[in-house]
């Protein structure tokens, strides 16, 4: 690599990292508790559990009763989603929002699926975890915030790739893993930065890239509706929104959706007029039973008036990519040990980011002649070691 090429790669690495580092530090810090959000919810009592009741062993209330129970709690709001609990499908969450517009103002009502009794109204829009979530996902700034963080993520990917290119000239004279602790603090941290960076390379790339993809979720869903759903739903063009009073029983709709996919179960339900459905359909998103298919969704659009299945389109590749980007980003697909390892890799990334910042800062403070002398001693020592 010529000195000029090295300078160009260094410049790109320096500036792409500098711009995104503060935000990446924030994302790594807020991400740390988010890895354990499920465990924290259980610890803080926000997780809901079905009360044991022998009388209710085989009881199942209709989906309509469950949703009605949720709606009754907050009559001034509308139901956007309903979903069974991932661990216990007898427990349902009915999500109510101020209107059908996309929002982060969710109020989930936990309803017992056996007898349609409201169990709890867990509040996720306040407290420490709420702050961690909002800072991490969009800096409290909605879609522009998400897209901005996505842009920072792209810079991170540039920083990582240029970092790999720069690894070669710096490691040509060193053994793998060699850290020159006996030299100056700056050299020591340079070696640590390179070591920790190269070891966590693939993890950082995957978490970074999937993070970027997740910031595009709203846009990808909108595009899907525009490109795929609109043609499927052309017969319904111009018809008004199907309000709650005009809808066929949800239980019937769910049965119709599941009838076509016996090996699947309901992941969540989107109601007419919401971002994930059409004004005239209830969309049942089904998921498979195996560990891999459980992460992929099959939407089934059921006519809200007649409870007939209108369409069950295959999700396009970009939505499949989005769905797989979620577990790969959260690290929640391999049990608690995986989450712990995820947290450790996150901490190592914090050290890579912090040391990078230190290296830039330290280099700025040191005069050029000192740097030149350091680099000369460096070359001398490594050529000695080679003989």
């Amino acid at each position: 690599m010529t000195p000029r090429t090295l300078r160009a790669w260094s410049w790109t690495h320096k500036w792409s990292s500098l711009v995104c580092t503060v935000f990446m530090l924030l994302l790594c810090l807020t991400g740390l508790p988010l890895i354990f959000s499920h465990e924290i919810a259980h610890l803080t009592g926000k997780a809901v559990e079905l009360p044991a009741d022998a009388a209710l062993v085989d009881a199942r209330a209709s989906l309509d009763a469950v949703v009605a129970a949720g709606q009754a709690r907050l009559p001034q709001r509308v139901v956007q989603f309903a979903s069974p609990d991932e661990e216990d499908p007898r427990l349902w969450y009915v999500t109510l929002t101020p209107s059908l517009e996309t929002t982060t103002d969710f109020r989930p009502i936990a309803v017992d699926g056996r007898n349609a009794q409201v169990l709890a109204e867990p509040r996720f829009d306040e407290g420490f975890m709420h702050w961690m979530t909002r800072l991490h996902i969009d800096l409290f700034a909605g879609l522009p915030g998400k897209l901005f963080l996505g842009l920072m993520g792209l810079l991170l990917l540039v920083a990582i790739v240029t970092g790999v290119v720069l690894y070669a000239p710096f490691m040509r004279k060193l053994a793998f893993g060699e850290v020159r602790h006996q030299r100056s603090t700056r050299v020591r941290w340079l070696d640590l930065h390179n070591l920790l960076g190269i070891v966590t390379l693939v993890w950082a790339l995957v978490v970074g890239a999937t993070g970027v993809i997740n910031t595009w979720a709203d846009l990808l869903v909108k595009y899907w509706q525009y490109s795929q759903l609109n043609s499927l739903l052309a017969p319904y063009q111009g018809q008004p929104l199907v309000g709650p009073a005009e809808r066929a029983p949800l239980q019937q709709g769910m049965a119709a959706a599941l009838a076509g996919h016996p090996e699947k179960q309901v992941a969540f339900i989107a109601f007419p007029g919401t971002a994930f459905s059409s004004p005239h359909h209830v969309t049942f998103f089904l998921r498979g039973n195996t560990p891999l298919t459980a992460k992929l969704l099959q939407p089934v659009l059921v006519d809200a008036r007649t409870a007939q299945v209108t369409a069950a389109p295959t999700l396009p590749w970009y939505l499949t990519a989005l769905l797989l980007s979620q577990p790969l980003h959260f690290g929640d697909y391999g049990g608690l040990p995986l989450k712990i390892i995820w947290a450790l890799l996150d901490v190592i990334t914090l050290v890579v980011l912090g040391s990078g910042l230190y290296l830039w800062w330290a280099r700025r403070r040191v005069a050029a002649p000192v740097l030149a002398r350091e680099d000369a001693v460096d070359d001398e020592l490594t050529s000695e070691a080679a003989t």
Partner: protein
Amino acid sequence: MKPLHQVFAMPALIATITAVGLLSALVADGVWDVLSWLALGSAVGVAVWFAVPRSRRAALAPRAHDPLNPTPSP
């Protein structure tokens, strides 16, 4: 000066193991999860092992006792 393929040999190995670890638990449960923990855990292990200074590293690793060449105490 090491040739490029030697510089990247260990990093490439670790990268492959990490990739396998990430995908393994995604595809299935049970032993595939364990494979994931081992693969990703080894990457963390390598990072920690080399990051810790040699003097402290000696205290971490079990020492072999050789009566002809006694290792000096730290």
